[in-house]
């Protein structure tokens, strides 16, 4: 148990994240918050609202949309933008749209064009010089070595061997024209911290994190949800109602569900603690290029 002068781990994490958000707003010219509508984004948005209260956060939300997100995500996105009083910018890569790039026919190209290219285009279009992202260091090995303030060249590349040292809580936000910074205010949070914080603060999240009967098909060992009628069923394939939920949310055709009965937050946390696989396992994106998949993607400009 703690006395009044010793902060809990969640209080310390919250204070650190708020400090980071305020430093960026003080030192960057045109910041933006990348908002993906997932649980990490939900926590990041909540922290931003706390950091600047009673003012609304002094930057817009940017959703780099692939048009293939779950319908429930679009609903929560619009609701949260309204509740927070922040401007919501939605960007879709026109070229990907024109060429009909989709996760069923184009695999890795889908992520590359809609997300990686879409993000670069959106940042260039609006001239944002600082972008908040909800990545955590416990997610993946190359993230564990990324700075909280992560610099990108004018072409949005990341050089893992040439990162600025980050001492104490002193962040160097200076950069040349054209360069930008990605800032990860929840770098030091773990998946359990995120869930506990959502629980304690009653933060709204997408209902897909909770178990419900949903139409699914099984492909390549992944349970996929048939979220709309764009889902091409193979001959003989019939969606089956299963009790499922999601541990992580992305494009619905690329996001694997888990069979679960966890319908409340404590049950979700319980299941997470007793589970034996990591949360990104349901994502196809980390599996290519051996162990260095994410590191490679980040060097190319992926968030």
């Amino acid at each position: 148990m703690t006395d009044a002068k010793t902060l809990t781990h969640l209080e310390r994490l919250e204070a650190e994240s708020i400090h980071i958000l305020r430093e960026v707003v003080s030192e960057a010219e045109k910041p933006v918050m990348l908002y993906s509508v997932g649980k990490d984004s939900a926590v990041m948005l909540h922290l931003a609202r706390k950091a600047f209260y009673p003012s609304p956060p002094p930057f817009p939300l940017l959703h780099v949309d692939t048009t293939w997100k779950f319908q429930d995500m679009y609903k929560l996105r619009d609701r949260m933008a309204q509740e927070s009083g922040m401007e919501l910018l939605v960007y879709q890569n026109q070229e990907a749209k024109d060429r009909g790039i989709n996760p069923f026919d184009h695999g890795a190209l889908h992520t590359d064009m809609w997300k990686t290219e879409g993000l670069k285009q959106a940042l260039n279009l609006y001239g944002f010089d600082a972008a908040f992202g909800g990545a955590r260091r416990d997610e993946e090995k190359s993230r564990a070595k990324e700075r909280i303030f992560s610099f990108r060249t004018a072409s949005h590349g990341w050089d893992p061997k040439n990162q600025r040292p980050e001492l104490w809580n002193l962040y160097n936000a200076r950069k040349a024209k054209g360069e930008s910074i990605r800032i990860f205010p929840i770098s030091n949070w773990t998946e359990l911290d995120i869930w506990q914080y959502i629980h304690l603060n009653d933060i709204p999240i997408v209902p897909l994190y909770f178990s419900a009967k949903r139409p699914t098909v099984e492909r390549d060992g992944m349970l996929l949800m048939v979220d709309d009628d764009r889902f091409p069923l193979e001959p003989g394939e019939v969606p089956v109602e299963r009790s499922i939920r999601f541990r992580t949310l992305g494009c619905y055709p690329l996001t694997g569900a888990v069979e679960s009965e966890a319908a409340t937050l404590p049950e979700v946390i319980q299941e997470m603690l007793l589970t034996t696989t990591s949360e990104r396992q349901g994502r196809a994106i980390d599996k290519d290029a051996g162990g260095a998949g994410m590191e490679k993607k980040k060097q190319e400009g992926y968030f």
Partner: protein
Amino acid sequence: MTDTLTDPIYKTDSLIAEDIDAYLDVHQHKTMLRFITCGSVDDGKSTLIGRLLYDSKMIFEDQLAALEADSKRVGTQGQEIDFALLVDGLAAEREQGITIDVAYRFFATEKRKFIVADTPGHEQYTRNMVTGASTADLAVILIDARKGILTQTRRHSYLAHLIGIRNIVLAVNKMDLVGYDQAIFDKIVADYTEFAASIGITAFTPMPISGFKGDNITGPSENTPWYTGPALIEHLETVEVNSAVDADKPFRMPVQWVNRPNLDFRGFSGLIATGTVKPGDAIRVLPSGKTSTVSRIVTMDGDLDQAVAGQSVTLCFTDEIDCSRGDVIALADNPPQAADQFEATIVWMADEEMLPGRSYWLKIGTQMVTATVQQPKYQVNVNTMEHLAAKTLDLNAIGVANLSTDKQIVFEAYADNRTLGGFILIDKISNATVAAGMLHFSLRRAQNVHWQATDVSRDFHAALKNQKPAVLWFTGLSGAGKSTIANLVEKKLARMNRHTFLLDGDNVRHGLNKDLGFTDADRVENIRRVGEVAKLMTDAGLIVITAFISPFRSERDMVRQMMQPGEFIEVHIDTPLADAEARDVKGLYKKARSGQLKNFTGIDSPYEAPLDPEIRVDTVAMTAEEAADAIVARLIP
């Protein structure tokens, strides 16, 4: 592999399954400890961290499967699981079997969440270790029981102590490989005690462990019945964290951001560095010294009755006093001081060496000022702690030097306050973080040496000469025509009865600066001295004309800062390199091209052209006479 596993430290499976609400209640009251592990792969550092993650169930089955596959492919433990592969995250590191960068790892027990900074142990990664240590409450110094105290042990201990870590664990690892021999452990502890005292470490906690086998990690080991101290995890769970210590110090909060949503609300946001604050507390804003009283501590969850070190809050005052980013809010009757000259320890972190005299950005708390560092008093050999004479500091070098800032900063000694005593230096051109530093104290002369006020003022000097003082600062490549045009300008001004003085690069180097060469460091000092002389001459009312290559933007900006606003007129004599080289009046380009002359601007030393000069002279389009007329017309319209 399963035979090496011990009981997990996350012994809460049953509570998770039976009563998740009770579990959550326990876990939301956890505290947090940040620590650093010091050692190399050879000491079993990565193995120890992998062990901690594994035992606390932070490794999932899919990660474990990948780990087993990797262990067989590139591991160093034969068919056994190689925990080191878990933590060496970047592809380059896994291939080379070394840890290049700082990586942060997370695990938790029922009592605490832990953040581990995993940093490489080799001397060429000193900066990485200092970075990892800067946020740590505790350091685990790993020793291979077979090898005892090595040079790197001394280095790691010195660095941990330097950065102010008070809790040091001496983990004598690989005890399984020395038969759990108490005599070996006792000998290492005795050796370390002697060494530690010599560098000022008064207390540390030694423990015999095996990261590989799991001895004394989560609980007492049967293999070391002679050891009665705590296991590593027990110690980590109970040791005092920094934020608790900071809470007992006087209140200080650097202001990050002024919160002003409307005319009725004005709050000051920041992270409390030390102490506690309550509504009704008398506070003082520094450096202005204005006082007021805290009226509210505002958060989105409602106003607070009290806030402590480590919390991010927004404070409101009862009075409308000036307060902005960079100011420090402190206890009214016990405020920190402000000064502009200091002694500090500096850890150099850039590939380019430190240039004494050059202006760098200095960030301390939320204050950003311009600072210049003097030649180091000494450099410390990080292996032997000997003091060495040094002219500069290069990558990973640690030294003690005086520095001065262009305006007063609110500070405390690093030993008393990490937030108001720890700083970084930022290169003004590349924007890289080039150094970290720790303030020791302000120099007496900053407090006690005041400007001598003279009765005949600079305005009086200028009025006597019936002119406005100025510095015409010519910059450009060698052979661009600086001296020629400067000479014409001075002749024209003399004809107009203006009092002038021409400071020429070559002439100054024969006298005032004859001790300086052409290295980057000497070029910086050359310009600094010329700037100071020019400043004295403007005080005397003169129009000063300087003709120096002055290749670096940051030094020209430094001189600009020395002068009164509007008095510094930068004149870029802009000649393409090819033209200057074709003229080669003094034959210097030829010598430089043949390698006889080193550090020649434009050839093997850079020229940073002005971005926005007051006057730009295109010598290809203009004759020297035309250029001189244009400059005079700009000066005296």
